[in-house]
């Protein structure tokens, strides 16, 4: 109170209104909001560009030294750390280093593919059931659980994967799968670390994303076309296949890509269950393997004091980022294509 300047009583009502401070005026005129909006719009863009530029400049010597071999070779060797030093392309590094990222790129795509093969049908099925079949209360309960599943930290899923889920799969599920007469399904079922378990763990993390997104999409489908379909005598399955899903088609692709992006970039859970087999492409469904993200998190510290090594990991990060961006771009193109024709309005069912 004491800090408020004393204004003589009586004069207060007569004195002219105090000049507005520049700051408050700036706020009132909306400049603040404008700048906030401007910043908000540009910061994500700039961050993406910034990360790409930094990764690229960091990785540039490695890109030159590793060459195309990075995308054609499978050998990943961090070199003899007590060996001789070599200087080239402006950096000094120990001899014997050789980097081929094929197993990691293949591993990243394989695990994501397995995750999607399992997660997409499950998620869309779950979304349809939640919206169309379940009573409202049960639906909101299950919806709530789906969202909670999405919120489980990946390290928790990884821990569960390595302690419980992986051994369970190796003991009960994998031996059954070996009866499928496809060479890739046959071989040593391992001990719960490898391609299959990584893919399954990823599927668990992808399902809530795809399911809750597609649930919201399906919920947005108007009742009228669905009623019309029922009136025509369609079964629930036909109605879902011919009316509901085509209606949200473009959105579904978006939902799947959201899940795919999560699967490609997922790090710690996969690092815990993949078996960390650097330089190995899985020869069967159960073999230990490696993904780009898992390699970065498990082994960056080995090379952190080596200039070529650390730059190669930057190159690896760049590859991961490009794969993710490319996935997004492809998805956008697909959404564009599908959304033109998918809406069933005005065309025969």
């Amino acid at each position, binding site marked *: 109170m004491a800090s408020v300047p004393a204004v003589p009583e009586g004069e207060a009502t007569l004195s002219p209104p105090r000049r507005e401070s520049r700051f408050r005026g700036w706020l009132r005129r909306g400049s603040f909001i404008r700048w906030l909006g401007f910043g908000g719009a540009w910061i994500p863009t700039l961050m993406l560009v910034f990360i790409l530029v930094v990764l690229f400049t960091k990785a540039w010597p490695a890109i030159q030294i590793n060459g195309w071999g990075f995308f054609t070779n499978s050998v990943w060797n961090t070199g003899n750390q007590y060996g001789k030093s070599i200087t080239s392309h402006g950096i000094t590094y120990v001899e014997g280093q050789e980097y081929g990222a094929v197993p990691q790129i293949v591993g990243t795509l394989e695990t994501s593919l397995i995750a999607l093969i399992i997660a997409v049908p499950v998620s869309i099925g779950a979304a349809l059931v939640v919206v169309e079949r379940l009573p409202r209360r049960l639906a909101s309960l299950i919806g709530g659980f789906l969202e909670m599943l999405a919120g489980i930290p990946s390290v928790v899923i990884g821990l569960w994967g390595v302690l419980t889920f992986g051994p369970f799969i190796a003991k009960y599920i994998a031996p059954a799968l070996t009866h499928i007469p496809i060479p890739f399904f046959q071989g040593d079922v391992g001990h719960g670390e490898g391609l299959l378990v990584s893919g399954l763990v990823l599927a668990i993390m992808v399902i809530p994303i795809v399911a809750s997104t597609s649930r919201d999409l399906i919920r947005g489908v108007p009742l009228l076309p669905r009623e019309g379909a029922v009136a025509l005598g369609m079964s629930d399955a036909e109605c879902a296949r011919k009316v509901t899903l085509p209606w949200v088609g473009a959105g579904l692709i978006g939902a799947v890509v959201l899940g795919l992006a999560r699967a490609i970039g997922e790090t710690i859970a996969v690092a815990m269950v993949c078996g960390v087999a*650097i330089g190995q492409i899985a020869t069967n469904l159960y073999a230990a393997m490696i993904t780009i993200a898992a390699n970065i998190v498990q082994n960056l510290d080995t090379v952190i004091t080596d200039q070529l090594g650390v730059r190669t990991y930057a190159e690896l990060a760049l590859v991961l980022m490009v794969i993710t961006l490319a996935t997004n771009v492809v998805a956008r193109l697909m959404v564009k294509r599908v959304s033109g024709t998918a809406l069933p309005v005005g065309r025969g069912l």
Partner: protein
Amino acid sequence: MGNRFRLVAAAAAVVPLALLAACSSSSTTSSSSASSPASASSSGNTTVSETGSTLLLPLVSSWQVEYGTLFPNILITTSGTGSGTGIADAAAGTVNIGGSDAYLSPADLSQFPGLMNIPLAVAGININYNLPGVKKLNLNGTVLAQIYSGKITTWNNSAIAALNKGVSLPSTKIVPLHRADSSGSTFLTTSYMNAQDPSGWTASNVGTTVSWPSVPGATAETGSGGMVKGCAAIKGCIAYIGVSYASQVADDGLGTAALANKSGAFVLASSSTINAALATFSGKTPASGAQSLINGTDGYPIINYEYAIVKPKQASAAEATAVKNFLTWGITTGSGSKYLTPVNFVALPSNVLAIAKNLIAKISS
């Protein structure tokens, strides 16, 4: 896995501890004991942080407990993150001490001039196996290299049988375990295989991270604890685990192999065999402390100095003093049998102790 789990547990434990320490420091600053030389710092409390080798972790943990009761105003934090992280974090200055099973490489030194590797104690790596009924097993570097390359796939292979006359070996499939994280144990074990059989295990496959040859069923584990648990769960497994985990290894019913040294004798790790091997190397140890102790002619063949990786220039005078005092205490009082026997380490020989003391004296702020 064990490593990461421990990390989470450690974080969960450290946060309340740090809060507690902060609270107690604000309320008892004036009364904090002056027994520690580092009490000059303004808050009265100094934190010495250590991270790195999981092989060294059990020793540093026991030091931490004892040191905490002796000097309550020095807070020691420790975590097992692997030697690679220990070196990297100490070089970056994010921790005071990096624990490492491997000495610094010329590349490390050229990038971080002055970074020191201070020997703390002598440790070793055991080769453990999960074969109930097989109590005694002899192995050498050549056979080990063939196992880890997938050339020997069953325990009753003739090459293993040749080293183990009179032992009945089962036809169990061999499951080689290796470390998932960047590890000093991996470095020491691959060094041994390369030293014994340079053509069977090439020098390019020696390091803290190794491109392991593809072996069906082979698995990776994080941290030394993860290796123990992983091996206990898999019949027929073989794993390389630091001697500081020998009691857990025994509790889980795993066997320990006798390894061939350079002269071909099969030896188990014990304080006498480690000392015997050390005798041939300790005299050669240079003033920098960097010395490989692999494949000696006498005694146990996979031993190493455990190192504290320390920057000679610490962030503050209080930290420098605290680090010096802690390390000095560690290689003197902390190297008593009370601390070393439970982890199966051996104290530094007197000439290496002098080297370590010289290096510690270089720490300043």
